[in-house]
């Protein structure tokens, strides 16, 4: 009897496997690409117009998120879903238009002084805070609300998220914050909390000059301040009395929130669904095209793709592997490559770890370069995009297409970085040569590494490892247990060992679950650590100043005074161009010395959407907005996308020119 059971089971499994394999036969069909380049700009925009006119649009947009969101308190939340929702619900002073040019939002106009340290914004009048039913609360958004935003985040008890940049930038905020903190921890006893709180208006560089004028005084020149307003939620306004009255309840759900953006959160079910409804009192409501945005939580990625196919969602991301499986199906023509990522993946090398072997070698530039040249970056990029891995490659720390100088020149095209970008790092032979040089430098003829002794490396909780002070050099790579990262680590291991040779290097992978940053990177419990950073606003300082020897982001623990000096020069530069020049030099210095090894961007995969592209604000640094979005009843095809893209690029070039 059980025999039959087992047989049926096996048969059933085999049947279902073969059944689902039938789906992806005929994989050889290629993407059809229209010869766009040969057309004139006029033809292109006409073609684009045709596409746009032919569509019918819906008023509901259905999208998904995969991680349970936390609180709607936009000052303290760290979750990207919430941040993207809030971006649509609370407007900032300025916002980008569809070409990325900053246009008025809550501020009607703004001025900055010459060294761009004092920024003054004129607030639009008559903006009302609405509640979760869209009703007018009678409260108005005034200059004071922006001052109070800073007041709110300046209090340590409010746990503002990602405070550092703003805290350092706004005059007096740093001292204000830490004085309060010292009082809380009992270190300072000669002042009371109330006294310090009362001193805010006098000490901190933000002022409501009149009811509709707010002025920010900054600690240093910040030509990028508008992009910071776009990306940082900390500069959003708040109705202070309301928030203080609610205390910890502020933002715990949609009912404990006030809205002044294009949408208000009309309904929400925790871990399930969030509904945004068009704000009837919104100042720019004529440009809000979608009436309702429905968010659904779908924890499993494959499920959301399947739901898109069944027409239950209006967008879906497609991972590299899923992309391959959809080739040859009806969906192939609807896959659109993800446009850009400002985030860079790189390897940290640990200069102060407990592994004596690695610690000896990492001081040698030859060894670092051996590692740098041993990676076949294209193969790694194939994990992200099997069709066009080239677009994933990135050799610099800051992203391309994120920072431009006044002349419209891309920061990464500055000479020092241009050289880094153009280097071919896929040179296994060179890696071997560098390694041999390093060995010659650091080992005796018997393969013993000079100056160290065999012992046990204590990287707990990651683990403990035995090292013998002999070649091969033991290298401990620590990554998270995310499946994609593991695959990548395994690939890297093979590459490094093949390029350098297992006689000289022993690459060990530890995939550590949980609190990787806190238990691995921060306490130096690794030799090589995989991480990413993104360019947060239109200035390289966002990342680079944090990577100085005593910078917060110097996870490798290196000591590079040359770099620190260059950063100093950049910060003190007279013009924005000079500043970028120096930053580029500094960044190139880190890359060339292989103190860190950036290798690919975080760009991954493709997406499918029912949205007409290029109709909502181009939010490079911040979260996307639904304002202006057009939702079709059918998925966008790639060929349509290409036509629209071409037309958009032409229009954008014009727009950027006009903006200057």
């Amino acid at each position, binding site marked *: 009897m*059980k*025999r039959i059971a087992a047989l049926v089971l096996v048969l059933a*499994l085999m049947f279902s*496997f073969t059944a689902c394999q039938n789906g992806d036969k005929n994989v050889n069909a290629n993407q059809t690409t229209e010869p766009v380049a040969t057309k004139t700009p006029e033809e292109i925009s006409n073609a684009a117009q045709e596409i746009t006119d032919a569509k019918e649009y819906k008023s509901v947009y259905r999208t998904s998120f995969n991680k349970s969101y936390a609180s709607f308190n936009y000052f303290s939340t760290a979750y990207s879903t919430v941040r993207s929702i809030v971006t649509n619900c609370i407007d900032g002073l300025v916002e980008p238009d569809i070409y990325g040019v900053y246009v008025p939002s809550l501020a009607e106009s703004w001025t900055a002084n010459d060294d761009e340290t004092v920024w003054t914004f004129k607030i639009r009048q008559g903006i009302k805070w609405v509640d979760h039913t869209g009703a007018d609360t009678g409260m108005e958004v005034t200059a004071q609300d922006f001052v109070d935003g800073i007041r709110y985040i300046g209090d340590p008890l409010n746990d503002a998220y990602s405070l550092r940049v703003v805290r350092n930038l706004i005059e007096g905020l740093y001292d204000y914050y830490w004085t309060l903190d010292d009082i809380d921890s009992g270190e300072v006893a000669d002042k009371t909390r109330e006294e310090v709180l009362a001193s805010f208006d006098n000490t901190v560089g933000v002022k409501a000059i009149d009811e509709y004028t707010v002025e920010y005084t900054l600690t240093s020149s910040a030509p990028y301040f508008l992009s910071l307003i776009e990306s940082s939620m900390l500069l959003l306004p708040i109705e202070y009395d309301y928030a203080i009255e609610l205390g910890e309840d502020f933002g715990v759900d949609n009912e404990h929130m006030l809205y002044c953006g294009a949408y208000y959160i009309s309904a929400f079910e925790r871990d399930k669904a969030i509904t945004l409804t068009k704000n009837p009192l919104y100042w720019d409501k004529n440009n809000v095209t979608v009436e309702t945005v429905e968010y659904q939580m779908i924890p499993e990625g494959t499920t959301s793709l399947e739901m898109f196919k069944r027409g239950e969602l209006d967008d879906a991301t497609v991972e590299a*592997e899923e992309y391959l499986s959809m080739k040859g199906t009806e969906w192939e023509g609807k896959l659109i490559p993800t446009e850009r990522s400002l985030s860079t993946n790189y390897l940290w090398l640990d200069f102060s770890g407990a592994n004596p072997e690695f610690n000896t070698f990492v001081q040698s530039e030859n060894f670092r370069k051996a590692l740098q040249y041993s990676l076949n970056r294209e193969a790694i990029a194939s994990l992200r995009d099997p069709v066009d891995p080239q677009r994933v490659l990135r050799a610099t720390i800051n992203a391309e297409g994120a920072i431009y100088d006044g002349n419209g020149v891309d920061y990464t095209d500055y000479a020092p970085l241009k050289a880094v970008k153009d280097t071919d790092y896929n040179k296994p032979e060179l890696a071997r040569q560098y390694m041999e040089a390093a060995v010659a430098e650091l080992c005796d003829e018997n393969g013993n590494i000079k100056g160290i002794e065999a012992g046990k490396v204590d990287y707990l*909780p*990651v683990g403990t490892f035995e090292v013998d002070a002999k070649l091969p050099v033991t290298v401990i790579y620590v990554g998270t247990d995310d499946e994609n990262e593991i695959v990548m680590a395994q690939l890297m291991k093979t590459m490094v060992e093949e390029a350098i040779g297992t006689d000289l290097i022993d690459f060990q992978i530890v*995939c550590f*679950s949980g609190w990787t940053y806190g238990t691995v990177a921060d306490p130096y419990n690794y030799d090589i650590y995989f991480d990413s950073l993104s360019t947060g606003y239109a200035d390289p300082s966002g990342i680079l100043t944090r990577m100085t020897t005593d910078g917060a982001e110097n996870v490798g623990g290196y000591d590079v005074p040359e770099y620190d000096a260059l950063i100093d020069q950049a910060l003190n530069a007279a013009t924005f161009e000079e500043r970028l020049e120096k930053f580029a030099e500094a960044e190139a210095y880190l890359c060339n010395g292989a103190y860190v090894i950036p290798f690919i961007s975080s760009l991954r995969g493709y997406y499918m959407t029912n949205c007409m592209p290029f109709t909502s604000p181009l939010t490079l640094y911040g979260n996307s907005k639904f304002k202006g979005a057009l939702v079709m009843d059918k998925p966008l095809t790639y060929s349509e996308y290409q036509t629209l893209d071409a037309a958009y690029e032409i229009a954008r070039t014009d727009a950027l020119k006009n903006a200057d």
Partner: protein
Amino acid sequence: MEVKTNEAKRPAAALNPLKFRAAIYNNMDSEDIGFSNYSYWKSTLRTFFKNKAVVALVALVTGMIVMSFMYPIFSTVDPNKVSMLPLEWNLRPSAEHWFGTDTLGRDIWARAWYGCRNSFLLGFCIACSDVGFGMIAGALWGYNKKIDPFMIELYNIMTNIPSTVYMVLLAYIMNTSYITLFVSMASRGWIVEARFFRNRILSIRDSEYNIASQCLGTPMRRIATRNIIPHIVSLIIMEAALCIPYSIGSEVFMGFVGVGMPVDAITLGNIVNQGRASFTLHPYQMLLPTVILCTITVAFYVIGNKFADASDPRNHV
């Protein structure tokens, strides 16, 4: 006494009068009555193997165990061999790779057998420790009335603390590894087994033959080896057999939750969980591991249950 023969039934002529005298009586013959042809183990095994499906499953499992332990010895294919050529990733089944390759071009056939071996080892280890410790604890528990309330509370407490709590803690202290998984699963499994054995041993403790041993002053050691263990051997085998699919299944589940094996370890749980992510894309990657996994769990489950049935004397018919 007057006797009338019922002549109709038998013709008298067939009888020999000489036979009507005392026969030789053998006292011992009457003792040797061959009362029963019954033997516990013989009957158990006979009942067990009478079922053809069981024979097939035992053969299958034996074959798989042999295969999974021999394959790594004789095969030259490295299950961790990563290909740097994206062209060799996610290959479909072919002559070279019987069941295709995975996302990094590793041979699935090889990985499945390595995984099978590792999962078996894990399963066996957990089965041994659970049943072993469980039996010892169960014996102490069953034999010692004083610790009974304590053990009951301990049981309640241990089964009440969510296993994820200490699994995450252990992972923090010891890092994910075979040992961690083993410790976290074994640290809890024993008490469940202990309770099971405690109930059985209680009934043995109060049985007459055990009281007889007490009267004879039999020391604890021999009571354990002679009175208790032989009576629960079949239970031990059964529990161990059922423990294996359970621990393999748990490993898969823990992988799902994210507190399982180190992810580069080759176990069936990991292979299945990894294959699950790309299931809709490359179903064949999941085929072999899933079939092997299901075969093992189903086979052990069936074998364990059938053995339990077979070892029950009531079924020795």
